[in-house]
């Protein structure tokens, strides 16, 4: 198969970028999208041109390193991350647009590589249960009904890739934040810090410049881990409880 790629090329964070046309030729349909880019890169290197910078690591959809927008869709067509997109999904001769995640809080570093450290700072503000290694009770002492454990797991499946914020017209990170808050706040172990966690993470998110949710659900549509937008409802509830609790000086 052959494809005309329209690829975003950008030398560095502080230089302007633009779409460039690059041909991908002789591609097998069983090839993954990233393997297609590998083939193109090896050809560019052999021709003495600069290869396309793009990040990937596990290539099985779990590490969340991919940061590609394919034909306008963060993480590309179908479920899963961009590394799980296979060329058999495209038509021979098709023009494919490839660009990096677009969100003000994810500055572009080079070509298709973005800086997602904003997510790290949100996690550091409250995406954890404070506990001390060695002080845990026996695991069987905490009973968690299966439906609760399952719901927590659904939310915990978030791979932290940033597609949600990249897809959102408001560049909101609320699916990401909601996923962590839902995962931890549903569990008995997460209760002591539940309100504080929601408050701290939302404040950190605002500080990073992400917008808020206005119910587009674009995040849910692109999420490679199928995290449901209902986590945002849970986030809102816990956040309001957290703010009110602080405003009236209650004990969290």
């Amino acid at each position, binding site marked *: 198969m052959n494809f005309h790629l329209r690829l975003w090329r950008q030398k*560095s964070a502080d230089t302007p970028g633009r779409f460039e046309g690059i041909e991908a030729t002789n591609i097998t349909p*069983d*090839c*993954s999208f990233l*393997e297609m880019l590998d*083939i193109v890169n*090896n050809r560019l*290197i*052999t021709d*003495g*041109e600069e*290869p396309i*910078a793009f*990040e990937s*690591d*596990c*290539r*099985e*959809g*779990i*590490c*969340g*390193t991919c940061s590609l927008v394919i034909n306008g869709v963060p993480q590309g067509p*179908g*479920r899963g991350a961009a590394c*799980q997109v296979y060329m*058999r999904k495209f038509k021979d001769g098709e023009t494919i647009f490839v660009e990096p995640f677009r969100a003000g809080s994810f500055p572009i*570093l*080079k070509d298709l*590589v973005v*800086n*997602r*450290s904003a997510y*790290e700072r949100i*996690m*550091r*503000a409250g995406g954890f*249960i404070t*506990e*001390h*290694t*060695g002080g*845990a*009770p026996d*695991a*069987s002492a*905490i*009973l*968690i*009904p*299966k439906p609760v454990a399952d719901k*927590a*797991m659904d939310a*915990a*499946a978030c*791979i*932290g890739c940033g597609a949600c914020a990249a897809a959102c017209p408001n560049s909101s990170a609320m699916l990401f934040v909601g996923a962590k808050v839902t*995962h931890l706040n549903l*569990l008995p*172990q997460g209760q002591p810090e539940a309100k504080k966690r929601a408050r701290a993470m939302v404040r950190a998110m605002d500080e990073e410049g992400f917008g808020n949710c206005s119910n587009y659900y674009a995040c849910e549509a692109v999420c490679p881990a199928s995290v449901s937008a209902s986590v945002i409802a849970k986030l809102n509830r816990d956040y309001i409880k957290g703010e009110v609790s602080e405003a009236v000086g209650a004990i969290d």
Partner: protein
Amino acid sequence: MILDAKIPAGPLEQKWTNFKNNAKLINPANKRKFNVIVVGSGLAGASAAATLAELGYQVDCFCFQDSARRAHSIAAQGGINAAKNYQNDGDSVWRLFYDTIKGGDFRAREANVYRLAEVSRNIIDECVSQGVPFAREYGGELTNRSFGGAQVSRTFYARGQTGQQLLLGAYSALSAQIGLGRVQMHEHTEMLDLVLVNGHAKGIVARNLITGEIKSHAADTVLLCTGGYGNVFYLSTNARGCNVTATWRAYKRGAAFANPCYTQIHPTCIPVAGDYQSKLTLMSESLRNDGRVWVPKKQGDDRPPQDIPEEERDYYLERKYPSYGNLAPRDISSRSAKEACDSGRGVGPGGLGVYLDFSAAIQRLGRNTIEERYGNLFEMYENITGESAYERPMRIYPAIHYTMGGLWVDYNLMSNIPGLHVLGEANFSDHGANRLGASALMQGLADGYFVIPNTLGEYLSTQFGGPKITTDLPEFKKTEEEVRERVNKLLSVKGTVPVDTFHRELGLILWDKCGMARTEAGLKEAIAEIKALRERFWKEVCVPGVGAELNQSLERAGRVADFLEFGELMCLDALTREESCGGHFRVEHQTPDGEALRHDDKFAAVFAWLYKGDGKDPELEREPLSYEAVHLATRSYK
């Protein structure tokens, strides 16, 4: 040189307790004065960095990924073992210990493995308290599944994403410590060399992968938690970025590399489809709880699987190993798959595949149950192959997955270089010649949460009162200079061949000659071929761009250059170990029915290799393995 494993005295069951009772402690006020470098942020690195910071040490943690959460532990699927005996099926610390020693084909250290089994129970407690959402029963209790090489159900799991959930637990603990300012996190930063001051590991030289800046970092001790070297084979289940550079650089600074030939080939991966392929995808071993492995009895039988009647199928694992059946250990299952394919009965393109069939389980349990247990794996399989495993059996084939070898460490997890500690897959210590499923997560977290916090004091307590180590010391400047030279050398070859081409060639040599079956002649050929390939690399490789920028070709070139050296050591180790054990199968040494034949009289020892200079043969040191509690037996899973 004598490799002293520093095994504590006393009976096996008492060693760890005795150790802790007598361990050197560092008081809280002094912990603040010690700086610890942790390289890697996977299960071992993140858990160590978080726990040491909780204890009060000043920690600097490095990862080459853009976030600590993306370390490759994230991709582990099936589960984590722990001797909890929640199922009341006869499990115990002793049984987990014995299964691990036996699974490793009696080539691991008794004391380390016993400690691992002991702390396995604390790991589950710890993870649950962090909020890891393990699978549960309706009553709220934790549930378990079985894994290879065990007859009990001791594996805890979170769907098919156990590694992800455990890593996110450790990462959340690490994030909390970063937020508190106790850990300085260095993302997108790759260690390129180890710095020794008066023979002690006192820092690293690392490259910022975004700016290209090469910089030194000083500390009182260095912990390498940098994972395994499976990517030396090019195609493996490892992530693209996994590499041997950190441990190889440490080796070239004097750290002993132990048992490099012990590599694990995982029996259930999606088969290779073409030469464009960049990685192989694992299908979790947990699938063998419900899937049955078979090939047609007839050679070259190309009927679709559903048309092959029951009596014309060979369920070879059930036939050969009736008591463990489809849950035979990985090395044995892989070799059996190879045998079946070598005998012309393989299925799929090129005959390099066997079936993993769920139809019986779907009939017995219903499609919903199977979907609940393995839904994401089936989806992944369909995505990659375009086939639904609900309707026809999966096609699987073995692939490189894990490496049991690694830097030599003593009981305290310290290498032969004072101050250099090695944790997780990067060390050699606990799995012998073959690792059992669901034990890698256990070891990574055991080392980070429970072992190193107790053993680090043994070294640090000897480091009071010396001059403060800073990066102004000439040792740092010199190492930095050497790293710069090496980077410039890669950039100045200016050939025309992409790095990937050399990596792929190296992989083919090793898969062919140092893979599932190894021979003296093949290994000798491999060594010669690797040498020639390495020469070509330094003449023909093309690394475009410059050093002071985000340059992925340069990153890859550095890693492949190290693999090209490391691959030779791996073959040399395989050549020297003239026996078969676990994942190391020397064709010359097998029983009449094709099982691994060990030679305990000569090889019940760790082979630790010491670097003696480029172009010179490394020196072999042996650490004899003495078994006090278990009887060296021939492994049988029949």
